[in-house]
């Protein structure tokens, strides 16, 4: 996998013409860095999914452009997009969108096969991923025999099988209960942090804000107020930078949930900042 930057430049998406036209996304700009988890939130009909579709090369902007590591993918012909979707993006959907006639293993392996992997290799790769995601006992199951959480883990394995640089997730917790939803979000964060992939999540689930590096609020097709998240290096709590207590050590800025944490950190009582960061819920 090569780390890639995805950039949305002044993208507008308009559906229909004339008086009946609807602007779903209006002049939106955004850059997603490698290893970053970006959460796009907003009310229903705010344009979140349209924006995600454009970022995933499923939809072309009416105006503006989408760039993947400098290449303007929104200007590419339809014939070139399947390869980009297959190799650079991994998709995770609210409805899981697993192929009902295929087993768990086949659902994942087939995407590798589509990318040109030989059958045996594709199955091996799928098996390894599914095992890592705790589905070793479910390889031959059909999707209908799985729980919601298991289905979403299969979808995540499918999204990862071609080793993409970016994971685009559309309401990945919407069909899951709170506990499983949180597990899935931690998994997505781990994928970003441990494997250096960018993860863009569209959701209106407030409970998952704390796993994102950045939270964007989309309303009426525009970003209204950008909230940047940070992790308190002392207690590990996710905090909004704009509202957090800021502190500095060795010339670097840190954000804290409270003055107490800042004092503790500045005084040098915390030996391993990284370890605490990794221990985020």
């Amino acid at each position, binding site marked *: 996998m090569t780390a890639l930057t995805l950039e949305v430049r002044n993208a507008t998406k308009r559906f229909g013409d004339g008086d009946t036209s609807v602007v779903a996304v209006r002049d939106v700009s955004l850059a997603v860095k490698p290893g970053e988890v970006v959460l796009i939130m907003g009310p229903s009909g705010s344009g979140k999914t349209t924006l995600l579709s454009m970022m995933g090369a499923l939809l072309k902007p009416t105006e503006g452009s989408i760039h993947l590591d400098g290449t303007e993918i929104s200007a590419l012909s339809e014939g070139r997009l399947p390869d980009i*979707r297959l190799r650079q993006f991994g998709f995770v959907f609210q409805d899981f969108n697993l192929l009902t006639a295929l087993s768990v293993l086949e659902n994942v392996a087939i995407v590798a096969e589509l990318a040109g992997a030989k059958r045996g290799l594709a199955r091996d790769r799928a098996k390894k991923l599914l095992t890592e995601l705790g589905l070793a006992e479910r390889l031959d199951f059909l999707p209908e025999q799985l729980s919601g959480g298991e289905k979403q883990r299969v979808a995540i394995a499918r999204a990862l099988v071609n080793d993409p640089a970016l994971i685009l997730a559309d309401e990945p917790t919407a069909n899951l209960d709170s506990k499983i939803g949180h597990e899935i979000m931690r998994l997505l964060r781990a994928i970003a942090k441990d494997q250096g992939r960018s993860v863009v999540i569209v959701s209106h689930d407030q409970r998952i804000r704390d796993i994102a590096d950045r939270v964007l609020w989309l309303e009426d097709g525009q970003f209204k107020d950008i909230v940047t998240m940070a992790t308190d290096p002392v207690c590990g709590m996710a905090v909004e930078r704009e509202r957090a207590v800021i502190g500095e050590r060795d010339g670097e800025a840190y954000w804290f949930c409270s003055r107490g944490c800042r004092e503790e950190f500045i005084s040098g009582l915390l030996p391993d900042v990284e370890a605490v960061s990794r221990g985020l819920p």
Partner: protein
Amino acid sequence: MSAALLLARRGLGRSRVRLIASVGGVALALSLTLALDAIYAGVANQLTAYIDRAGADVWVAQSGVRNLHMVASWLPATVTAEVEAIEGVAEATPILYSTDTIAAGDERSVAYVIGLPAGTTMGGPWQVVEGSAQVGRGEIIVDRGFAQKAGVTIGDSVGVLGSQALVVGLSAGTASLINSVAFISFDDFRALRGDAPVVSYVLVRVAPGASPAAVASRIGAGVPGVTAMSREAFSAEERRLVTDMSADVISIMNVVGFVVGLCVVALTVYVATLAHRREYGVLKALGARNGVLYRVVMVQAALSVALGFTVALLFTALLTVLVPRAGSNLELALGIASIAKVGLFATVIAGLASVLPIRQVAGVDPAVVFRRGVAA
């Protein structure tokens, strides 16, 4: 291809009802064509059975007569000696022939009535299952099937050529859907036809090593007023007559079978494509090219048709075994040419049936994956 094959196979297997409807429809449509071909081939076999099994290498008939069915051939009785004199002829036997009905009680049946000289080694029944293989004056050998149907047995009498004859033998393999073959004595036949000094055909056995075609050619050149043909050529003419007579019916049934098969497969593949639109959208979103999805549709059509063709073939083969055992005079013959023709039909059906859904597949929007549907 393997991904497309897997998707096509699983897609078909998942929708069993649709698969059964598709395969069943194709099988039914192709069975129509195969069975009809087999029936006509069987009838042709039966109609030429006498020519093929009479023991003659060459058939000599009145000039211009090139077969048995629905014709009259009359030659002067002296022609037998003229034929015997031709180089390469080992043996020549005259027979009298007419299409007539044989009757017993209320049962009447169309028959090729053959007048056989006493002691002849050609032209007689080739399989006698009961009684004598030779007929004398006032005697007749009839087909076993007719005897069973008419309730007659050895020693009973049947009506033939306006007279009565005593059944002395029962033959097998001498009945077809249309008629049977009955054998009476040459002298009876001639007497019942006014004692005219004529024969219908002269059956020729060629000398060892002689070519039947060459001998037939020499007879044609050396004996005036006759047409001489090798058994193969004579049989082929008879078969062609059946084919010509049935060509229109076969053509119509071929078209019906083809259209029904095409409609069934096209409809089921189209419906299956519509039903899987969302999954095709998912595959597109994941990066599958249209070509992969086209192949899925084509493989599904091909598999449906291949399965349907196999079922049709097995069904028709089963019919060829069961129908004769059911006591029917109907014989079904499944030929390679017919199988190849119907196989070609099946291939064309699969190809055409794939065309319509391809447009549907091309129009699938990959962004469909973001529309809320049934979770899977």
